[in-house]
C-alpha cells in the first residue's frame, strides 16, 4: 500500500519537475517515451517491476546495510583529522577553508550529492558513488583524491560517519521515502564514437537546450553569472573542453561513460537536470560522444559555433587525447614553448595553415597568492600558446577559455601602469569564517560578493628578461614582474584593445612605460567568441638591447604569463600566473645535419666490409 502511494507521489513530483525545469519536453508526449522506455528495457532484459516512472537504462537498486557503530566511530576519527577543515564540524560545508573556495565544499546535511548512478533526486550509492568521490576526488575543485592517503577501509569508515551522522535531513535506511533506481552503466552497450554519432550529438545538444548554459561551443559561456546551486552560491556551467576538470571524471578524463552517467542522472543541487526521462539511451550516447570529443586533444578543431559538419565531426574523431599527468590529473605540461620559422608575412588570423607547423602548448595557470591582494578564486586555469617567427618579427597566438567577455566600462582611479591597487581599495577575499556562509542574501556573504564585482578588462601579459643574454645561469628575474637587479620586458594586452610595453622592476613597483616599443607592437587579432579569447600579437625580434628583450634564435629565453578575468574582479595583482617556461626559436635546419650522418653511414659500410673480410680470411686459414 505504502509503495503504491509513494510511487504516485514520486511520479507526480517527476512530472512537475519535467514541466518546470525543462519546458518544452512535455510536447514530446509522455506516452511516447513511456512506450520507448518499455520497449528498450524489454530489449535490454531488465527485470523491472511496476515502476512506470523508471527511466530508460535504470534498474531497481538495493538499499545499503546500515554501518556498525564501530565503523561510524572509526570514520569520525578520519573525518576530524582530514575532512573537517573544509566540510565543517556539522558537515555543513562551512569549515575554516570554505569561504576561500570556489566551488564551495559540499554541505552534507541535505544529502544532496552531485555525482551519482541513482536517479535524479535520489540519494547516491555509498559504496559506488561516494566511495569513488573520496577515492578519486572531484577534479576542478579542492577535493583531492584520497587514494594512497587513506586505506580503502578508512575511506569506507569516513563514509559511514558522513552518511549516518552528517546527512541529517534524509537517511539511506528510510524505507518509506528513499528508493534507489540505479543507472546500469556497465550493462548498457555504448554506441561507438563515430563521426555520425558525434554529429548527431552536436544537433541534440541544441535540441535539448544544453547550449543555453554550456554555450554554443560548450565552453560554459551560456548564462555563466546567473546560476546558483541549491544553497544560493554561484556556480558555473562545465566547460566541455576541459574534461579533466569534470567533477565526475574519476581520474579518467577521456572516458565517455562518465559523461553518459552525469547526463543520465543529473548533478543534484545544481541547475543541471537529469535527462534520463526525456532522452533515449541512444541519444544520450550521441551527446556523450560529442561532449567527450570536444575535450581538448592534440589538434585544435574549430567547431564553427557548434554547427558541426561531417568534415568537422571526422576531424574531432581523428584527434588524439592529450597525455594526462598522473601526478596532477591535468594535461602534461611541457615547459618549452617552441617558435618556428616561416617565410614572408606572419599569419593574419587563426585559420592560417602555417599554425599547423608548430605544436600548441598548454600553459597551466594558478591563482596569484604570493602578494596581496591574492586571488583565491581563479576562473582561468590554462592558456594555449603557439608561436611563429619570420626574419624580423615574432607572432604569438594565445587562446584561452573565458566564460565572459569583460571590457571595463566604468572609469577607474588608477593609471594603467600602476600596480599597487590596494591603495584604491582592491582587496583580497577575507578568510571569512562561517558567519555569513549560510546566507547568500547577506550583502557581506561570499556568495553575494562573488557575482557583484566591478567588471575590469580581461587581459593577458607575458614577461621576458631584459638583457637575458647577460643573466648568470641559472639566474632569472623574479617570476613576478622582475626585480631590482633584473628588470623585465612586459607586454600586456587588455580587452579594451590596448597592447602596451612596460618595464617591470618588482612586484610592488609601478611599471615604466616603454612608449617606443609599444609603437612596434601589433594586435593582429583579438576576438572573444563562444567563450574563448583568441589573441594574436606580433612584436619585433629585436628592439633596443638595453630596454627590450632581444630575441635570438636557438636560445632558451625565460618567459612567463599572466591572465586576468575581468568578471572575476581580476585587476592589478589579482590575477592568474604561470611558472617559468622557455621560449625557443627553432632555427632552420643546417647543412651539417645531413652531411655528418652520411659520413657516419659510409664509415659503417667500410667497417662491415672489414669485419666480413677478416672473418672470411680466418675461416680460410682454419679450414
Amino acid at each position, binding site marked *: 500500500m505504502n509503495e503504491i502511494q509513494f510511487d504516485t507521489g514520486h511520479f507526480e513530483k517527476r512530472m512537475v519537475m519535467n514541466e518546470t525545469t525543462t519546458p518544452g519536453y512535455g510536447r514530446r508526449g509522455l506516452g511516447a517515451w513511456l512506450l520507448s522506455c518499455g520497449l528498450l528495457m524489454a530489449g535490454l532484459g531488465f527485470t523491472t517491476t511496476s515502476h512506470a516512472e523508471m527511466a530508460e537504462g535504470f534498474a531497481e537498486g538495493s538499499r545499503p546495510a546500515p554501518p556498525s557503530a564501530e565503523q561510524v566511530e572509526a570514520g*569520525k*576519527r*578520519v573525518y*576530524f*583529522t*582530514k575532512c573537517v*577543515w*573544509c566540510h565543517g564540524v556539522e558537515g555543513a560545508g562551512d569549515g*575554516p*577553508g570554505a*569561504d576561500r573556495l570556489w566551488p564551495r565544499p559540499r554541505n552534507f546535511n541535505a544529502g544532496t550529492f552531485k555525482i551519482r548512478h541513482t536517479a535524479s533526486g535520489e540519494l547516491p550509492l555509498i559504496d559506488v558513488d561516494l566511495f569513488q568521490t573520496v577515492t578519486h576526488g572531484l577534479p576542478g575543485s*579542492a*577535493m583531492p583524491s*584520497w587514494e*594512497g*592517503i*587513506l*586505506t580503502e577501509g578508512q575511506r569506507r569508515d569516513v563514509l559511514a560517519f558522513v552518511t549516518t551522522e552528517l546527512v541529517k535531513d534524509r537517511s539511506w535506511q528510510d524505507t518509506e521515502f528513499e528508493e534507489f533506481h540505479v543507472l546500469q552503466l556497465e550493462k548498457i552497450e555504448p554506441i561507438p564514437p563515430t563521426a555520425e554519432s558525434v554529429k548527431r550529438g552536436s544537433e541534440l545538444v541544441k535540441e535539448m537546450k544544453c547550449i543555453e548554459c554550456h554555450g554554443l561551443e560548450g565552453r560554459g559561456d551560456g548564462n555563466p553569472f546567473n546560476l546558483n546551486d541549491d544553497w544560493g552560491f554561484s556556480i558555473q556551467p562545465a566547460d566541455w573542453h576541459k574534461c579533466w576538470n569534470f567533477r565526475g571524471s574519476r581520474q579518467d578524463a577521456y572516458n565517455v561513460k562518465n559523461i553518459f552517467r552525469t547526463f543520465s542522472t543529473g548533478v543534484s543541487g545544481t541547475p543541471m537536470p537529469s535527462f534520463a526521462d526525456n532522452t533515449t539511451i541512444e541519444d544520450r550516447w550521441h551527446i556523450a560522444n560529442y561532449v567527450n570529443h570536444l575535450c581538448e586533444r592534440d589538434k585544435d578543431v574549430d567547431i564553427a559555433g557548434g554547427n558541426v559538419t561531417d568534415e568537422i565531426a571526422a576531424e574531432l574523431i581523428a584527434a588524439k587525447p592529450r597525455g594526462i599527468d*598522473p*601526478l*596532477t590529473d*591535468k594535461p602534461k*605540461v611541457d*615547459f*618549452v614553448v617552441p617558435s618556428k620559422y616561416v617565410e614572408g608575412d606572419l599569419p593574419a588570423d587563426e585559420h592560417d595553415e602555417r599554425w599547423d607547423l608548430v605544436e600548441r602548448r598548454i600553459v*597551466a*595557470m*594558478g*591563482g596569484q*597568492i*604570493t*602578494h*596581496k591582494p591574492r586571488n*583565491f578564486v581563479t576562473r582561468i586555469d590554462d592558456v594555449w600558446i603557439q608561436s611563429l617567427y619570420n626574419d624580423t618579427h615574432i607572432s604569438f597566438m594565445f587562446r584561452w577559455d573565458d566564460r565572459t567577455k569583460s571590457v571595463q566600462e566604468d572609469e577607474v582611479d588608477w593609471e594603467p601602469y600602476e600596480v599597487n591597487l590596494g591603495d584604491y581599495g582592491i582587496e583580497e577575499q577575507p578568510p*571569512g569564517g562561517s558567519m555569513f556562509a549560510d546566507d547568500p542574501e547577506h550583502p557581506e556573504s561570499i556568495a553575494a560578493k562573488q557575482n557583484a564585482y566591478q567588471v575590469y578588462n580581461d587581459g593577458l601579459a607575458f614577461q621576458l628578461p631584459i638583457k637575458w643574454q647577460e643573466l648568470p645561469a641559472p639566474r632569472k*628575474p*623574479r*617570476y*613576478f614582474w622582475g*626585480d631590482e637587479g633584473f628588470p623585465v620586458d612586459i607586454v600586456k594586452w587588455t580587452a579594451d584593445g590596448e597592447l602596451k610595453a612596460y618595464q617591470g622592476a618588482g612586484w610592488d613597483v609601478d611599471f615604466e612605460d616603454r612608449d617606443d616599443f609599444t609603437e612596434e607592437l601589433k594586435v593582429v587579432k583579438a576576438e572573444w567568441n563562444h567563450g574563448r579569447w583568441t589573441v594574436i600579437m606580433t612584436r619585433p625580434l629585436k628592439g633596443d638591447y638595453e630596454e627590450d628583450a632581444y630575441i635570438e634564435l*636557438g636560445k*632558451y629565453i625565460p618567459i612567463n604569463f599572466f591572465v586576468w578575468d575581468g568578471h572575476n574582479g581580476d585587476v592589478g595583482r589579482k590575477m592568474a600566473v*604561470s*611558472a*617559468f617556461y*622557455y621560449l625557443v626559436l*627553432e632555427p632552420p*635546419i643546417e647543412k*651539417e*645535419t*645531413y652531411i*655528418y*650522418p*652520411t659520413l*657516419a*653511414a659510409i664509415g*659503417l*659500410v667500410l667497417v*662491415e666490409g672489414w669485419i666480413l673480410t677478416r*672473418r672470411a680470411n680466418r675461416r680460410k686459414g682454419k679450414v
Partner: protein
Amino acid sequence: MTWLKLVEGYMPMQMITELAICILVFSIINYSLKRAGMGLPKFWAGIFVWCFVNLFYLKYRIYPPIPFSVRAIYGTVAACGIFMWVSGSQQEWEEFKRPIINVLDAKTGMTKFIRTALLVLLPIGLWGFAYNSFLPSFDEPIELRTVHPAPPATTKVHGKTYVLQTAANPYRINPEGKYDQAYSNAHIVSQDMGRLMKDVNNPEDNPWDPNAEGYIKHVREGGEIFFQNCHFCHGDNLNGRGLWAFAFNPIPANFTDAGTIAQLQETFVFWRVAKGGIGLPGEGFPWASVMPPWEQHLTVDEIWKVIMFEYWHTGYYPRTWE
C-alpha cells in the same frame, strides 16, 4: 599504468622490489625451461633482459620520466652485467656468440638473408640515428635547485629579530604551559597509513574537541590558517598536490615526505615560511618560487601555529639542535 600505482614515499623501494621480482621470475622461468630441455639461447635471453630493463622498465614504468643521459648510464651498466653473465665460462661465451658467428658465416639461406639485410639496414639505421641527434632538440634544460639552503643565523620578522638557534615555538607547550616537545610529540597523529589523530574522544588528541586546550587547540588554530592560506598549493593532505600545484615549477613542497619538514628544525621552517621564496638565497632559485613571504599575510603567532599544525598533521617531529 593505473592498475599498479607507485605509492608516494615508497617509490624507490617499490622499484627495487619490482626489479628484483622480475629478475627472480625470469631466473625461475629460465631455469625450468632449461630443466625441461628447452633452454633459451643465451644470446636472445641477454638481449631480452637488456631491453626489458632499459627500454621497457626505465623508460615507461618510472614516473616522472628520467632523462635519456641517466638511462644511457643504467643501460651501459645493465649491458656490462649481462656481458658478465653470458661470459661466465668459455662454453657459455661460445654459446652466446654462436648466433653472431653464424650470421657472419652465412652458411644457410636464412643467415645469408639476415646478413644481407643487416648490411643494408645498419648503415641506414645509423644515418637516421645520427640525423636525429644532429637535429637541434629543445628539451627543457635541467636546473638543479637546492631544496634546503643554509639558513641565516637570525631573521627579522615584524620588527623582531629571531635567533634561529635559540628561538622556540611559543605554542608547543604542555598543560602546565611550559615549552615541551616530548608532550607535543606524544599527541601528533599516528604514523600508520592515513596518519589519523590518535584518539578522537580525547581532548588532548583531538583539536576539534570542544574541551581542547593549550597545544592541541593551537594545532586547530594553525590548521584553520593552513586551510585558508596554504592548501591551495601544499594540498589538503599537505602532500604538495594542491589545487594549483600543477601550474607551478618547482612543485610545492610535500610535507608528508620524510625529506622536508621532518629533516628540519622548527626555526628553519619559521624562517622559510616568514620570508618565502623571495627570501631564499641564490641556490634556492628565489626568482622561480611562488612561496609567499608569509610575514606579509600572517602574524608571527599565526606562523608558529601553522608550523605546529604541519608537524601535527604529518606525524613528524621537528629536529632539535642537540
